[in-house]
């Protein structure tokens, strides 16, 4: 039987040399005349071990990592083809604690299957959700999603079932499913990973959404920074169309649904749903005032479901195993699992899917293993560039929408960026304002002007010009931005700024003024 060797085609693995490794493995297979084939899988999300090469042996998979092209010949000498021992041998990948401790529902297949093989997808439980959905009425599908307690994983946490119900109940000659794949938050890559590692789960989730709401057309709005995900999604969509999953009759049913990928052009604000819709329509990506809600008047003024990648990718398992199965994971009003992305200055960086409820400290210290530099963890930013900076004092906060809100923070898209004790929190606060200024769509004044004034005020603070007055101004400015901005860009920029100021005040009261002496 032909031996299967898995080498990821995930961007993270590619960034660490997976392509060179694949070429070297190909050369060894040919040179040693081994009956083997290379499968380009997704990543399991253990990035400190990437590129991670896996071999399928009679006793199960054996992993090696991190592998460089220079290691490959030695690995074959050590009997990689039989799962032989080597300094880089990790044994059964699923026994690695980082993976063993996870609850993989949405990412169940990611890193295991060939992302563009439909046969592989089905062999690992794919399409079960869609088949169940087609046996139900649209309202029964929506009931299942509502029952699961799934909330928008893009950051806002709005109940997905309610959104779908609104679109279902709104009449329109054309309805749309729009997938928000404009994953712009620093510290997040779960959308990228699932699109590159298991794109069919997104295709399946969007198709279920279409069947449930009466939408026949889907768009994935993908950021231009993800060209690799674009290639893989297109391959998957083509395969799904050829297999009759997409098209005039979804798996032979009376429902029609088709979809395509549209690529953005570099604008963070297009991750905001109404700016995204304007961008899809071919306009400047400017935020719309709500109401009307996109569910009533969305893309081209039609009823539109707009959901994040992970929300939609979580739907197939809910329809496959039932809403109750999914709901039974989690805590409080945060049900199911969340793919936490542990990033930045961290020893074990990667994707950790778990039920809601772990504490921030467990995630950073135990799962992440502390900093990569070996220095103490000083701050972590949770939820992207608009998320709050948390000090160690708040490490007992459980990962839950409401618990984070209670500590003046947010989960957002569940990215965590770890910083060691060399971080300068005034600099981070300034960056938050600067980023908002660069990315503001310009429609509302608090965001457009406030962000630039914020940079100026923090620069004066840095220079030591009347520091107490600057702190007062920036606090007041943040208040205006928080309550006066049209969307989360201006409205949430105060989170990183004010959390830095509140939890790390020592960084905002720099050494005695130099200028006074000059």
């Amino acid at each position, binding site marked *: 039987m032909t031996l299967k060797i898995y080498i990821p085609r995930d961007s*993270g693995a590619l960034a660490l040399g997976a392509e060179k490794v694949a070429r070297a493995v190909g050369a060894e297979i040919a040179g040693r005349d081994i009956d083997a084939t290379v499968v380009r899988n997704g990543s399991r999300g253990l990035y400190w071990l990437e590129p991670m090469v896996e071999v399928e042996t009679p006793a199960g998979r054996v992993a090696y990592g991190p592998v460089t092209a220079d290691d490959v010949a030695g690995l074959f000498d050590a009997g990689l083809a039989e799962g032989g021992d080597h300094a880089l041998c990790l044994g059964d990948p699923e026994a690695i604690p980082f993976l063993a401790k996870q609850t993989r529902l949405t990412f169940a297949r990611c890193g295991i299957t060939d992302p563009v093989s439909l046969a592989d997808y089905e062999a690992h439980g794919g399409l079960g959700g869609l088949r169940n959905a087609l046996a139900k009425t649209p309202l029964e599908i929506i009931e299942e999603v509502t029952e699961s307690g799934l909330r928008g994983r893009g950051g806002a946490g709005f109940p997905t079932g309610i959104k779908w119900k609104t679109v279902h109940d709104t009449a329109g000659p054309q309805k749309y499913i729009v997938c928000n794949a404009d994953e712009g938050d620093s510290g997040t890559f779960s959308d990228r990973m699932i699109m590159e590692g298991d794109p069919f789960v997104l295709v399946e989730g969007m198709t279920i959404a279409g069947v449930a709401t009466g939408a026949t057309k889907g768009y994935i709005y993908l950021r231009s920074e993800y060209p690799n995900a674009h290639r893989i999604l297109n391959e998957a969509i083509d395969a799904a169309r050829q297999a009759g999953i997409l098209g005039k009759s979804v798996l032979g049913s009376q429902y029609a649904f088709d979809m395509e990928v549209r690529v953005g052009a570099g604008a963070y604000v297009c991750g905001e749903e109404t700016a995204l819709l304007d961008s899809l329509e071919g306009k*400047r990506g400017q935020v719309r005032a709500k109401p009307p809600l996109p569910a009533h008047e969305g893309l081209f003024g039609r009823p539109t479901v707009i959901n994040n990648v992970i929300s939609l990718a979580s739907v197939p398992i809910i329809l496959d195993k039932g809403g109750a199965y999914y709901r039974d994971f989690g805590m409080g009003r945060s049900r199911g699992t969340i793919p936490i992305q542990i990033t930045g200055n961290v020893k074990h960086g990667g994707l950790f899917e778990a039920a809601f409820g772990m504490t921030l400290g467990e995630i950073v210290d135990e799962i992440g293993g502390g900093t990569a530099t070996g220095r103490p963890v000083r701050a972590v930013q949770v939820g992207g560039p608009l998320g709050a900076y948390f000090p160690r004092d708040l490490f007992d906060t459980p990962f839950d929408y409401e618990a984070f809100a209670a500590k003046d923070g947010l989960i957002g898209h569940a990215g965590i960026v770890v910083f060691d004790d060399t971080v300068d929190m005034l600099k981070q606060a300034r960056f938050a304002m600067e980023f908002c200024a660069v990315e503001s769509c310009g429609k509302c004044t608090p965001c457009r002007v406030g962000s630039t004034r914020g940079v100026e005020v923090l620069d004066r603070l840095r220079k030591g010009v009347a520091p107490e007055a600057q702190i007062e101004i920036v606090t007041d400015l943040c208040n205006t931005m928080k309550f006066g901005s049209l969307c989360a860009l201006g409205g949430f920029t105060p989170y990183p700024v004010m959390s830095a100021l509140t939890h790390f005040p020592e960084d905002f009261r720099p050494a005695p003024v130099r200028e006074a002496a000059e």
Partner: protein
Amino acid sequence: MQHARTEIASAVQPIIERWKGEEGPLLPILNGIQRELGHVPRDSIPVIAEALNLTRAEVYGVVSFYHDYRDKPAGRHVLKLCRAEACQSMGGDAVAEKLQKLLGIAFHETSVDGAVTLEPVYCLGLCACAPSAMLDGEVIGRLDDAKAEEIAAEVRA
């Protein structure tokens, strides 16, 4: 000038034709032009505007809104360096300094020999292997001084 304009129109026309009948065709057209020509020439704007029944101002407004669109050609190589928080936490600022020095240019600039354009990017989704960059569409993770020197040598070759 007239010649250049005709040339642009003939390069742009097939891209417009491909997308004209689709919903929301403007971004796909602009993306196509930038991919084909390396930038969105000012002279392409009236051509697009006429084809889509928009004003030139509307098309220009869209072109100028998005960070990706360039109004002049880039260097032979385009290096996008991530400037966002996860990369900052792993010394991204120092690598950015180093690369600017090695390449002799600042962000948004193209080297005099036309070898390379340096652009900031806010997140490549490689936050667990920071700092990161993208050179001509290929991703690079865990940037350090040695990798920065390799990049500088590669773009000059």
